[in-house]
């Protein structure tokens, strides 16, 4: 078993999604792509030329990801069958607004995963229990939701809570599928749920270091100049570039 399954989450219009898939195909030239679509059913029907799955879940389609505790549980479940059929050994999971900038992005992540002997790697991995971390504190307003990890934890310290960005994670398929099989009874925001579930199942979760300045949860990169500057400064990819697929001229010549 080998190969990389590349799962791209989007809710944008069909033409934008097609451009996104095209860019990923041309640039990374590796990986079997699945679009996990969370937009309208009408736009989903227009998607063609690549594998797709419709994710019909209100917990994916939220207006405020953090405060409404957005979840990717349904994305993991929706991709399960496709993933099994793909036979891929690795999974890359990202969102529409991560713009890949190097040809060997997925290969770099695979090498990093192997070097660190990790089961999943991601951006901005932090241990947050007991800290001022905004998402952790928001969950502590209903503290019982963070104790659900204790029910299945194989760790000595079952109180550890991790946080990691939802985009750009890279997985061993076995880990991805096991994490996807866990249903948390209470709502936990995906940036906490995903790495914490993986950790408490006993998988090794590690951080992708050295790319932090190109991975911003707050900043929107919206000009060719900013994108080119990031690439020249060593960015493997860039987040967040929400308009990349709606404004194709932005990427011309890059």
């Amino acid at each position, binding site marked *: 078993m080998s190969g990389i399954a590349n799962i791209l989450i989007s809710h944008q219009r069909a033409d934008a999604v097609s451009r996104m898939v095209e860019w990923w195909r041309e640039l990374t030239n590796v990986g079997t792509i699945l679009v996990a679509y969370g937009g309208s059913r009408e736009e989903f029907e227009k998607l063609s030329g690549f594998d797709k799955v419709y994710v019909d879940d209100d917990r994916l389609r939220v207006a405020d990801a953090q405060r409404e505790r957005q979840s990717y549980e349904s994305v993991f479940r929706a991709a399960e069958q496709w993933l099994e059929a793909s036979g891929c050994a690795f999974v890359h999971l990202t969102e529409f607004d991560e713009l890949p900038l190097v040809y060997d992005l997925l290969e770099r992540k695979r090498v990093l995963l192997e070097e660190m*002997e990790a*089961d999943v790697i991601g951006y901005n*991995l*932090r*241990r*947050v*229990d*007991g*800290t*001022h*971390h*905004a998402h*952790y504190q928001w969950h502590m307003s209903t503290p019982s939701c963070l104790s659900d990890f204790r029910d299945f934890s*194989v*760790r000595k310290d079952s109180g*550890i809570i*991790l*946080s990691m960005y939802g985009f750009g994670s890279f997985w061993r398929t076995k880990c991805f599928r096991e994490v996807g099989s866990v249903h948390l009874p209470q709502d936990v925001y995906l940036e906490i749920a995903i790495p914490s579930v993986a*950790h408490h*199942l*006993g*998988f*090794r*979760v*590690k*951080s992708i270091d050295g790319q932090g300045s190109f991975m911003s949860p*707050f900043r929107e990169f919206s000009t060719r100049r900013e994108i080119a500057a990031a690439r020249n400064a060593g960015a493997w990819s860039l987040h967040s570039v929400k308009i990349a697929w709606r404004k194709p001229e932005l990427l011309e010549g890059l």
Partner: protein
Amino acid sequence: MKSSKIKKLLSDLFQKWVSRFGRQIIDERTGQEVARVVVRVRKGRIEVVGLRDSRPLVARFVPPAEASYTRASIAFESHEEPDFPNERNR
């Protein structure tokens, strides 16, 4: 401009101002500056404003070098980088 955008803009501007002119917070574990903040007391609680971009920090009272009945220091420290082994293959 939408009110949410104005709110975000003001928040970003305030964050920039605090990160430049706020008081320094040192991570007790690493000895490095992790943030510049404004500290205030509000509704009987101490509020620390400006930690948005810092590493997640745990607050704790620091044991004093000499016993003191008048003053207590609160320090901040981050956890170690997550580096837990795989416990599936054991």
